[in-house]
């Protein structure tokens, strides 16, 4: 052991210095983001661009190490997302959110898919771009709602239910794109997708039904053993899910879903810091791989896409809140709160790196997430002073 370390001593020292310096830079960015009242994701992406290939200062840390850490980051992001929800909440979400969820999917998937095809990309890359524009960032949205003290607002349940639907829809979408990327023929793709969907539904039902029992089994023991158990389970189930083409991210999401009660609260506390560390690595590594020039080139289409999808998200929010009987002001708040895209969009774009149009997709997704993650929280903050589309209610009062 010591021999190996000694032999690689110089390399290890350099790696420590580089990783340490990057972590310190990220810490400063995270603090800056906190002060600006935005999520740190766009700043991490910018940092990745700066230290990546063609950036201002290229790092040459072992790519294998960073790439594995980044993948773990995705699993932990999805795991903690699964932790957020209980089975009961998923059922409520599905009941009340199905129709707005479909409207949301169509209205926000179409612009990304359309632009991808318009740019002459292969279909798979265009489908991934559709996913990038579809899914709002649960992380940014809940942070915005908390910071603006809107959790008690009456439009908030309709926002959160829409997020639940989007996150659940990912459980179907990710295996589908995984099959598309694998590039099998049509019949094999259909078979893989069906297998994946069945696997997801089975695990979902098991997670909801036997989650309590699993949590009870994990409840004893120290924090250390719980941390290792939860971390191990997440990676193990994620890896197995990847083996059967379901996507490791969804496996991790379902593990999070299965944990309930006190174990859930403890796991959140224990995994939270680990998640922050690995997720920051993921965002950094994502843009680390992107040539800054690709992002610059993607800026014009990204701005166009942002403008269109800001409208389509506001529309989905309007419809979702409108169905719950929310007034015009509340509907505008619901719509603007949903604008921000973030972690999920980057996870989706990162699936396409192996594609021929993967670089362009990555550049566009990075620019797009940068824009929406900054525009979204600002629009949400000033939602009450934005012009509102005329509502039927107002026409009625002015007429009578």
């Amino acid at each position, binding site marked *: 052991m010591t021999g190996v370390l000694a032999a690689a001593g110089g390399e290890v020292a350099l790696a420590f210095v580089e990783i340490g310096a990057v972590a310190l830079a990220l810490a400063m960015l995270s603090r800056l983001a906190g002060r600006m009242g935005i999520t740190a994701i766009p700043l991490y992406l910018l940092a990745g661009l700066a230290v990546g290939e063609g950036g201002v200062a290229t790092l040459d840390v072992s790519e294998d190490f960073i790439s594995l850490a980044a993948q773990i980051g995705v699993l932990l992001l999805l795991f903690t997302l699964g932790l*957020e*929800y209980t089975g009961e909440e998923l059922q409520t979400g599905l009941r009340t959110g199905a129709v707005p969820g479909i409207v949301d999917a169509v209205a926000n998937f179409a612009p990304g898919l359309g632009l991808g095809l318009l740019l002459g990309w292969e279909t798979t890359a265009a489908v991934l771009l559709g996913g990038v524009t579809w899914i709002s960032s649960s992380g940014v949205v809940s942070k915005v709602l908390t910071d603006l*003290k809107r959790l008690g607002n009456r439009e*908030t349940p309709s926002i959160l239910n829409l*997020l639940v639907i989007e996150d659940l829809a990912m459980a179907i979408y990710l295996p589908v794109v995984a099959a598309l990327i694998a590039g099998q023929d049509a019949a094999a793709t259909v078979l893989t997708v069906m297998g994946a969907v069945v696997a997801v539904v089975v695990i979902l039902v098991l997670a909801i039904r036997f989650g309590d029992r699993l949590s009870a089994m994990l409840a004893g023991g120290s924090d250390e053993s719980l941390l290792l158990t939860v971390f191990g389970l997440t990676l193990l189930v994620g890896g197995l899910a990847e083996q059967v083409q379901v996507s490791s991210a969804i496996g991790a999401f379902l593990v999070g879903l299965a944990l309930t009660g006190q174990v859930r609260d403890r796991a959140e506390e224990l995994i939270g810091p680990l998640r922050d560390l690995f997720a920051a690595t993921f965002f950094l590594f994502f843009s680390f791989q992107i040539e800054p020039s690709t992002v610059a080139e993607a800026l014009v289409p990204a701005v166009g896409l942002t403008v269109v999808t800001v409208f389509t998200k506001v529309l989905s929010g309007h419809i979702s809140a409108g169905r719950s009987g929310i007034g015009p*002001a509340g509907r505008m708040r619901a719509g603007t709160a949903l604008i921000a895209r973030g972690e999920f969009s980057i996870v989706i774009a990162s699936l396409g790196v192996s594609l021929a149009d993967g670089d362009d997709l990555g550049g566009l997704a990075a620019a797009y997430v940068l824009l929406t993650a900054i525009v979204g929280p600002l629009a949400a903050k000033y939602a009450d002073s934005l012009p509102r589309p005329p509502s039927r209610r107002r026409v009625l009062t002015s007429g009578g």
Partner: protein
Amino acid sequence: MADITEIQLPGVGVRYEFTTADGDNVGVVCHHGGRREIVVYTSDDPDRAHSVLSLGSDDSRTLSEMLGASQVSEAMHAMEQRIEGLALDWLEVTAESSLTGRTLADGDLRSRTGASIVAVIRGETTEPAPGPDFVLLAGDVAVAVGSPESLEQLRVAVRS
């Protein structure tokens, strides 16, 4: 008790809502971690939550203790403390009462009812053993001692 509506907030917790007797809409957001937020909805935008009070789980316990405790002391207040045929009672002198603005001697309460006023509570201060020239004001609370029957007569006299 008013009806309490329960609304699921996926990923956050649960929100409870009710309308007070005065017509205010009040909500409580219960976070998964145990934090609570108290919110009030206004009439200009009924969907918007205002004046948010955020409470840690310890704070919630303290607050509910205080709300519960005041009910207990109210119940104590209403209860007459009987000691071997002697009773103690608190009687509020209202603005409508015929005793308001008059001295204890004017009221001639002891000979009329048999009960004695042993103290008068006025706001934050207490006047122990008020003399015959002590003037009663609206809002005063008279602490009286006597037999249960005499206290009942005093209560009628104070109210009329």
